[in-house]
């Protein structure tokens, strides 16, 4: 059988914590590749990429799905997109908070709607109507990183969001 599947997690600067979780991350990549290869043996490349990404979302160790990083208010908001090269069909969700399985919801947008992208409450509504699994809430790891980064912003050490800094330091409400 011809065919190939490739996966990725994040990319960026080397952090000590990453080397400590190296084995876990490699294991997660391998699990995703095996899921993708199984799907490729019986289905299409679209089935394969969805199966592989679903494993990565479910693992809780990558910045997606159950393991997602948190926004400025400590909330999970997920984006996902899928594309099928045969007819350029496309489906995506953005700023979605209901389900951890954003990639499967993105595929549902492609297959069940006339649209290519549903965002926020509209995406949540579709996930709910389809009975998709609720997101279990932030992992301990995501919450810890969030606290650390918020501390760094307050000390002026976090260089990624320069313009947002004033907004980050004065969240809404009392």
């Amino acid at each position, binding site marked *: 059988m011809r065919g190939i599947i490739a996966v990725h997690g994040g990319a960026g600067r080397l952090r000590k914590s990453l080397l400590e979780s190296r084995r876990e991350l490699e294991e997660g990549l391998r699990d995703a590749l095996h899921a993708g290869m199984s799907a490729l043996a019986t289905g299409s490349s679209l089935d394969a990429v969805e199966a592989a990404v679903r494993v990565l979302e479910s693992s809780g160790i990558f910045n997606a799905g159950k393991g997602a990083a*948190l926004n400025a*208010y400590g909330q999970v908001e997920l984006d996902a997109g899928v594309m099928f090269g045969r007819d350029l069909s496309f489906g995506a969700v953005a700023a979605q908070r209901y389900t951890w399985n954003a990639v499967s919801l993105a595929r549902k947008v492609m297959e069940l709607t006339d649209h290519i992208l549903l965002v926020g409450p509209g995406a949540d509504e579709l996930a709910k109507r389809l009975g998709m699994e609720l997101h279990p809430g932030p992992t301990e790891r995501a919450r810890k990183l969030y606290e650390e980064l918020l501390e760094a912003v307050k000390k002026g050490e976090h260089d990624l969001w320069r313009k947002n800094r004033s907004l980050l330091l004065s969240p809404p409400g009392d």
Partner: protein
Amino acid sequence: TVGAVALDSDGNLAAATSTGGISLKLPGRVGDTPLPGAGVYAENGVVAISATGVGELIARYLAAFRVAELMRRGTPLAEALGQVVSNMTNFFGRRNTVGLIAVDATGAYGEATNCEVFLRGFAKPGEPVKVGVLAEE
């Protein structure tokens, strides 16, 4: 961010990308992941691509579409990926901003990054699975 690209035995290419976005993003912020031609793209006969990194820059640069466009004009996979990552790095003057994986219509695998770390792997039937964590692996 996580992603996958694949070619099946019918010659169909597909790509999927999913992310929690970047820590401390403002509520409602959307990066490259759900935008076709930015962080995810698949076109039969050309390429399937998935991207990770700083979504704002990948989206402004339309990284996935640029790779596909170069390949449509005859640039081979590895060269197209390398050119887009290097030009994007020079344009924004920043490293540690992008990682791309891709497969082309022949089933060749390609990758390129300007980061120190890039979690990725690929598998072909009958061959051992390969994974890497540091960019140079």
